[in-house]
């Protein structure tokens, strides 16, 4: 799958309270949560984000709580993928499980700024910065995780596992 969008770039250690503040966790629908996505560190994000846009960050994106509301809010805000130097581990699992694509690339983060237009090929991990005419490559997923992603996320993967168990 190919994605294309404008970059919204953030710093290191963007925590889940910044992605979706806990005061909104009485809701669990993505569309409702998206209205408050990033509001404590980037008020107005939801007004400027367009379908297909890309969130980019430095290290340890998504640190803090285990709330799946964080990737749900990002996905429902229309963001097509998140690119960072590294991700916090629970956020990483949650995003893969629900089907929000994440890419790790030091060089893409080092050579991209807010407002740049990127094209991402999820099959090959190629990240093309159209604004700066540069091409980068994301770190490939381990085989096990690639299988989980191609199965369509954890729920579909588990359905297949359980069907095989019964068979």
């Amino acid at each position, binding site marked *: 799958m190919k994605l294309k969008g404008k970059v919204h770039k953030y710093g290191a250690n963007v925590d889940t309270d910044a992605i979706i503040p806990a005061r909104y966790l009485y809701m*669990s629908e993505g569309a409702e949560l998206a209205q408050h996505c990033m509001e404590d560190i980037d008020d107005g994000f939801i007004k400027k984000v367009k379908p297909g846009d890309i969130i980019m960050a430095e290290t340890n994106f998504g640190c803090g709580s285990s709330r*799946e509301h964080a990737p749900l809010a990002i996905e429902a805000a229309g963001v097509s993928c998140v690119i960072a130097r590294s991700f916090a*581990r629970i956020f990483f699992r*949650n995003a893969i499980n629900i089907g929000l694509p994440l890419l790790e690339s030091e060089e893409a983060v080092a050579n991209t700024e807010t407002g740049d237009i990127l094209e991402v090929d999820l099959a090959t991990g190629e990240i093309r910065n159209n604004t700066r005419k540069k091409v980068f490559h994301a770190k490939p997923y*381990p085989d096990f995780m690639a299988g989980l992603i191609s199965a369509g996320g954890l729920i579909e993967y588990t359905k297949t596992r*359980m069907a095989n168990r019964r068979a």
Partner: protein
Amino acid sequence: MTLAEKILAAHAGKDKVSAGEFINARVDIILANDITAPIAIKEFRKLGVSKVFDPKKIVMVPDHFAPNKDIASAEQVKLMHDFCEEQGIPYFEIGQMGIEHVLLPEKGLVLPGDVVIGADSHTCTYGAVGAFATGMGSTDIAAAMATGDIWMKVPPTIKFVYHGALRKWVSGKDLILYTIGNIGVDGALYAAMEFTGEAIESLCMDSRFTMANMAIEAGAKAGIFRVDNKTQLYTKSRAKRPYLVYESDNGGSYANVIEYDVAKIEPQVALPSSPANARPVSEVANKNIRIDQVIIGSCTNGRLDDLKIAAAMLKGHKVHSGTRCIILPGSQQVYLDALLGGLIEIFIRAGAAVSTPTCGPCLGGHMGVLAADEVCISTTNRNFVGRMGSPKSQLYLASPATAAASAVMGRIASPDEIAAEGGVCR
């Protein structure tokens, strides 16, 4: 193998596992709360199975917004309650409940050698009893509720060795804040932190829970302690099922070993807005930082020994007139023990408010949310922007001793500034 690897190998049905390996691990306990359970239940329904794999191995605790703060949170708790009734899952509500990570060890539901997964990042708390416990999201919990197992990447283990004797008023909270300050909020990313050394052996169980609890604040997958006599004493009377005790092999396969001399560590305060902004209390107390609020409680510091330390500081003193001090016992049992031990009377006479157990203010939910420009010192685990309310509020993290001393002074203060008897449990 390290302690963490031994537990994971046993739960994956393997003789040996090593860091980086993908395994399927059998789980002993699965946990969810009022924020994460609603999504987990919704995802579970998509799996097309009618029953969870074993209701006795699942625990649900509404604690974040409970007692329900509004209609929307009441609906979430009701959904959770209905699911537990339908499936026969143990469910702990107001009156029976506690903050999940205080309640589960206290009830003997998590034991040494267990693999525990919880839809709450502070699930790592149970490493204090020698379990491999880690936080995950709702969809992971949904899948595990159906299958009884979970995929995991075996984490590398970083060994932390704490040498020497602890200074007065230095508790597990100070050691873990110091450690996170030293290695950073991603200093143990994806790793298991194993806490060892004679200073760790001297810590009481409640201080060990505090340290394991905050392993996630360094990005860790788990924080874990060796089972010793203190652990055995704690778990033996509580356990209702047999358990196995695992030990790291001599030499272990550690990714790194980090050593500290605790004689050099004084009580710590983490400045806004990162747990890694830890500074010695003497440095922070000199800055005359006026505070509007003090919170003593949470899954980090809401246990009996935490309240005993707070009471030692507050006894015979008054909370400063410009400061509100809210104390939240972590469970009904902690509340009762604090009541019988005379602690609640000390708190109320000092002018503190005492709340029913809840996570409440820690995540800016209720029972002590901050206004813009308000300043709070809290025994909780995160001081991110907006964590306790307004994104313009300021949040400092510290131990119960430092928080209670600050409540008396109305500014961030060192425990040494208060005439107090007693000390930190050892």
